């Protein structure tokens, strides 16, 4: 985000809000922040949205900041939204790009399940933008990164919610909805035991396991893993389809995945029409080999 903002010209500042976070400031400078505003306060320790809204709103008003950009996360979405209401500012979300022309800024928004790209604008300042995770690659562009700390004035209602127990990373791997990598299995697996191949690859990649309706119907895998028209819709960064033909009922559940790799022994399978990399071959020999290579690489 910082790198992209820096590339637009103008003054770029990074904002770090939290507790025990001062040490992160130099990082922001490395990626393009001329100034880094830091609010370090015990009351900001828990990842709750409302105190952050107070802090950032205060900063925006004090420093007359014109544009505030966030990268998508559950926390950021709540902060951006409440901030918009606090500042009576326009908020555009699901952004994949941003450009500026003179004083005017336009965002590119992906809408309707990625079927249309909308050019969106802001009619006033400040402007708030919420960007899709992974929309930009970080590029180092050393900037001054001078740190300025500030004292956040927090409102009563913002402090009403309290964190009783904070989350710790799950041992069982990400859920399908949150996973960045998904390995999915279909009829081509041949038998329910073969899902072990899919699970192995998913584990090696740190991803989740998904299944097509056909195999869920046949009882090979639970319904909670079903991706498709009558199952879940997912858009991970990487989707590896093993033994899946790619019928439209499945396609609509995963077509907005950033990168799709398909392994199927039928060269005419419809999935090859939209997979970024299609491999015509026997998944029973390819998948175990692939799993081994991935494990070795990550080790």
């Amino acid at each position, binding site marked *: 985000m910082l790198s992209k903002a820096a590339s637009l010209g103008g003054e770029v500042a990074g904002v770090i809000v939290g507790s025990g976070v001062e040490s992160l400031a130099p990082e922001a400078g490395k990626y393009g922040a001329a100034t880094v505003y830091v609010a370090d306060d015990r009351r900001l320790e828990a990842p709750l949205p409302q105190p952050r809204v107070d802090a950032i709103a205060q900063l925006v008003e004090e420093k007359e900041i014109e544009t505030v950009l966030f990268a998508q996360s559950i926390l950021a979405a709540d902060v951006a939204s409440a901030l918009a209401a606090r500042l009576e500012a326009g908020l555009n979300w699901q952004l994949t790009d941003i450009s500026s022309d003179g004083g005017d800024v336009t965002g590119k928004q992906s809408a309707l399940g990625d079927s249309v790209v909308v050019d969106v604008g802001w009619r006033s300042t400040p402007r708030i933008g919420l960007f899709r995770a992974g929309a930009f690659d970080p590029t180092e562009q050393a900037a001054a990164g001078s740190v300025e700390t500030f004292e956040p004035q927090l409102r009563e209602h913002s402090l009403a919610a309290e964190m009783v127990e904070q989350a710790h990373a799950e041992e069982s791997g990400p859920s399908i909805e949150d996973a960045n990598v998904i390995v999915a299995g279909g009829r081509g697996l041949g038998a329910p035991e073969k899902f072990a191949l899919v699970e192995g690859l998913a584990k090696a990649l740190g991803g989740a396991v998904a299944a097509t*309706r*056909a195999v*869920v*119907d046949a009882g090979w895998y639970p*319904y909670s893993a*079903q991706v498709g*028209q*009558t*199952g879940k819709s997912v858009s991970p960064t990487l989707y590896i389809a093993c033994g899946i033909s790619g*019928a*439209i*009922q499945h396609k*609509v559940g995963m077509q907005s995945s950033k990168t799709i790799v398909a392994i199927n022994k039928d060269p005419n399978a*419809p999935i090859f*029409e939209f997979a970024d990399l299609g491999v015509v071959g026997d998944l029973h020999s390819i998948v175990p080999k692939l799993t081994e290579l991935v494990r070795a690489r990550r080790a």
Partner: protein
Amino acid sequence: MSKGGVRPADYPPPFAPSEAIAAPTDPASERIEVGVLIVGAGPAGLACAIRLGQLLEESPETAERLGEVPVAVVEKGKAPGSHLLSGAVIKPRAIRRLFGDRIGMSDVPSYGPVHGEAVYLLSSGGRGMRIPPPPTMRNHGNDVVSVSQLGRFLAEQAEAAGAAVLPETDAQKLLVADGRVHGIRTGDKGLGRDGRPLGVYERGSDIAARVTVLAEGTQGHLTGAAIDRFGLQGDQPQIWALGVKEVWKVPRPLRHIVHTMGWPLRKRAKYGEFGGSFIYPMGDDMLSLGFVAGLEYSDVEFSVHDVLQELKTHRLIAKILRDGERIAWGAKTITEGGYHSLPRRFHAPGLLLAGEGAGLVNVPTLKGIHYAIESGIMAAEAAFRSVQRGESPSRFGVFDSYDEELRSSYVVKDLHQVRNMRQAFDKGFFVGGALASTMTVTKGKLPPFDLRTEANSERTLIRTGRAKRYPTPDGKLTFDKLSSVFLSGNRTRDDQPDHIRIRHTVPRLVADAWVNMCPAQVYEVGPDAGDGLVHVDVNPSNCVQCGAISAKGGRLTPPEGGSGPEYTLT
């Protein structure tokens, strides 16, 4: 087995019509009470509801006798129109009769009058010959409509007339006690594939009514049970055709309606292939294209879905569709038996049968919607009269007047005139064609004998390698079945009981017949079962409830309310 051949009828489904009959069980506090209950929000059912509303408005005392909910319509689809599919070209007369001057014909959704028609006799190699439209097919003065849209419109009118329209409600059982019909029982919701309740589970309810009108359309679930229970079978078995249709967005408007006959169907009697296609313009930028074939065909590799795809490759058809886009798809059976297969009586104590479910479809003229509306109006009037007179529905003869009216109306008279036409085509295209012409010219007086009807499932099966000629789907002009199912709007909940009743272990020939017959890829040949038999696997959530399986040796029952296709343009 007959004559050493294999017939689907030899492998009947594990289903008896009596399974759909039950006694009321809910206590008074739990059951739902309505005055007149109509099953099916199609043209017949909704016309009945609208007419009742009109009559009750003029007669408040009668309305009072029907309680808090005088008229209720239950519909198993997601919304009225979701399960309605037809060509369709309709005669406006019944709609005019239904609304009188309460609304103008311009308020009724329509794609405009028919401007002209062309009938082609196609042959292979892209050849085709224009022939004069047979007299039964003249459509001057008729309108092109989408029956799904018509259904939605009629439902709004029914609600405005005071009826409660309840979608996502399937009628699973007909409640019968003391020799009369007391209403229906709706199906459970929230059962898993194994039949056990899931987290959210809603038990079905008894809906008690003074008069029940069954307007279920083709292959009516309760209609079949009622005909069996009350001995209403007609002279000859009922038969069906399967229609598969697509709606296309096209850059060049089609200016007249088109019918084709001949290719890709085969003419010889042994194949039993009777039918043809229709193409109807829908305004300036859409059209409706469908193929209809009788289900008495004998080749196990015959697939109406794929024959339609094949038809589109004919240069005359491809030309019409060029640069177009397929935007909707659907399939449904059409009741074909005509006059000879009509039920003996259209009523029983507490019960009235209306519309296509009662067999009121004229296949040679491809008309049925206005018959449905007409019979719905008459059913409403019969029900109203009996309530007005305070007659007990169990009393013998209460609904005789309904039968009399129906049989003396143009509806049954039309059917009588064409009564042998459909059966004539059992003799093959040429003999059938000659017979049909004779019938038309003499308005049904010739030939002097009545032809017998053979039930669809009694046809001996053959295999010919027909499937090799179906085009490989290209995703632009021709499509595969799963893509078609997707375009029907079908997003049926997967984890629910299988609503299809078939024998799961049958000869390979029967299994292949089902696999190819089904336009939605519900059936698949499973593992070998020895002795020339195979297992048949079923994907019930693909089902668009066309009803073909019921004609060919199985039985379709209603799945959970709200399941199935969500037609909007068909």
